[in-house]
């Protein structure tokens, strides 16, 4: 019997990066607006958001390539104000990888070590160790121009890891790879981070990437941090519609607040009736209206005479086939927008005819209240 356990926390509670009220303005435009954030030691932390949300700006400020207009950044307790990028205990994996084209793999990886003038073959040993960590053993003499995209990415990783930084910064490192390689690298990156125990800060616009790899995620929009939480909480308990929408499909249902007490919220909805849900931490009441959200995969098709404690009935209006899953669009009387439902194809969801009446089961816990 598989038991449900709380995932163990591998990282400590010690703060590695402290970002305090950081703002970065370009004239009247604020690329980053009063961001505050603590990133813990040994944590795999992701900055997630659409392009232009300020995530790369924040990463570059941690690296020292950009300076905050106001606010401060500290790494490992040390304020970074005025410290140039080359003297920070951080290393970066660039989006374009920035592999030196005039050097071979070994020379690329050893680039930062050369200056340290290590004694007695230490440099060679560390280069080989780093190459082994990224599974590039034996490719040391390969010219930089002869590498594939995935290999370039590994060289960039090895080149940063060999410096043994306190923080490794990754700027969309997987965006240039094809889907299959990207998924493989997600697993490898996560495994590598667990092995070396270094704090990783990843910038990405790919929600699945962030969900798959991170201990915690900061979701950013328009220069502001919208939510900082674990992948599960971000996905299941988004603080607002913007976060919910960005993290994948979500059905939104209008609701009227009936009662609000402590940690819970009672709302009336059309379609789902009266529902009691957890009140999100960051919930700000805005009159009597609220929004309930439910992920498409949390609605299950009820077959034949099966029944559930909580169900809604409607009519299938569209069906889209995606191989392992089928996407159904279901109209529910009383709801202004039809619900989308994803169902695995094991029981023949791909054969449900359009126009057929359908009943959907849901768990009231899957209904999440959020601010508009």
């Amino acid at each position: 019997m598989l038991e449900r356990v709380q995932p163990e926390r591998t990282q400590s509670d010690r703060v590695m990066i402290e970002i305090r009220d950081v703002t970065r303005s370009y004239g009247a435009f604020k690329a980053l607006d009063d961001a505050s954030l603590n990133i813990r030691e040994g944590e795999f932390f992701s900055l997630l958001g659409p392009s232009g949300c300020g995530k790369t700006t924040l990463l570059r400020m941690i690296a020292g390539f950009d300076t905050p207009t106001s606010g401060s950044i500290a790494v490992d307790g040390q304020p970074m104000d005025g410290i140039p990028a080359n003297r920070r205990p951080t290393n970066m994996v660039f989006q374009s990888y920035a592999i030196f084209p005039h050097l071979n793999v070994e020379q690329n990886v050893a680039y930062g070590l050369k200056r340290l003038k290590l004694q007695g073959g230490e440099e060679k040993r560390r280069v080989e160790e780093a190459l082994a960590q990224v599974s590039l053993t034996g490719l040391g003499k390969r010219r930089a121009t002869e590498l594939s995209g995935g290999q370039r990415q590994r060289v960039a990783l090895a080149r940063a890891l060999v410096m043994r930084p306190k923080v490794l910064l990754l700027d969309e490192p997987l965006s240039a790879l094809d889907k299959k390689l990207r998924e493989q690298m997600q697993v490898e990156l996560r495994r590598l981070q667990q092995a070396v125990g270094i704090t990783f800060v990843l910038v990405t616009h790919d929600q699945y990437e962030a969900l798959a790899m991170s201990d915690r995620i900061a979701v950013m929009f328009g220069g502001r941090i919208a939510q900082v939480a674990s992948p599960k909480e971000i996905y299941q308990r988004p603080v607002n519609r913007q976060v919910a929408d960005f993290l994948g499909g979500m059905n939104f249902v209008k609701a009227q607040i009936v009662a609000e007490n402590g940690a819970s919220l009672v709302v009336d909805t059309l379609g789902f009736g009266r529902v009691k849900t957890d009140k999100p931490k960051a919930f700000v009441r805005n009159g009597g209206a609220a929004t309930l959200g439910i992920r498409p995969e949390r609605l299950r098709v009820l077959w034949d005479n099966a029944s559930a404690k909580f169900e809604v009935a409607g009519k299938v209006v569209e069906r889209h086939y995606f191989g392992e899953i089928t996407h159904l669009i279901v109209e529910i009387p009383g709801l202004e927008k039809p619900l989308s439902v994803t169902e695995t194809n094991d029981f023949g969801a791909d054969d449900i005819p359009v126009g057929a009446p359908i009943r959907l089961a849901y768990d009231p816990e899957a209904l999440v209240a959020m601010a508009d």
Partner: protein
Amino acid sequence: MTVAAEGSPPLRVAGARRSPLLQSEAVQGFALISPTFLYALILLVLPILVVIAHSFWTQDYLTIDHTFTLENYRIALTEPIYRDLLWRSLYISLTVSALTVILAYPIAYFISFHGGRHKSLWLFLITIPFWTSYLLRVMSWKVILGYNGVLNSGLIGLGIIHEPSTALLYNSSAVIITLTHAWATFAILPIFVSLEKVDRTLVEAATDLGDGPLRSFLRVTLPLSAPGVISAALIVMIPTVGDYVTPKLVGGKDGVMIANAIQAQFGKASNWPLGAALSVTTMVIVSLMAGATVLVIRAIQRLAR
């Protein structure tokens, strides 16, 4: 195999109708470049062949003796006057190209890395001297370096020297100064282009890996801009060896270069074969020197790693 055999006969008929020769890519390419190619052939290759042919003949008062001889090359390579002129020409062109590249690099670097929105304005400003004739530009160096020139009067005015110096004009240094100035643009442009191609994130990566500004320049920017440095050096070096006008105008007797001697052989001395031999010798030596320059810069590039 069968499919190909079945499919090929109609293809062959089509091929026979239009000549396969005219369809070949190489022929089409040649047709495309033929005007330029003919132009180059008539005005470049033929004259060079004529010069090479002459270098193996002998001047016999007013006629040319067409019997094959290497005598001209013996004179060109062993006569002290020509040897000295050749050495001086090489020395001047090497110095000029080295100085030009060293002076042009910071300018190109500044425009490329700190030019911001005004890059094209900077490049435009650099080409402005070319709006005046080269002769005028050389003459203006005479005005600057001459006995009563700007430099002398300035130095006297400041009390640094008490009588005009004659060491400024009519020697090889004057030739070097003038040529360095004249060729600056030709060095700035190729270096600028190669610097533009240097990916700025590579410099950031070097910084990220601990290099200060100087180190990242020496280890990344400079090696990656080496192609521009090489072409700048060659672009300056090759024509300056054979420069004729500048030494004539500002060189005096100490600044005479091989081209002046060649001109004399084709002109006053009327010894075309010797002039031709001197030309061919110069061409060969310049080619060797150009090759050597490329090798040296490559070697330095490797050392910088």
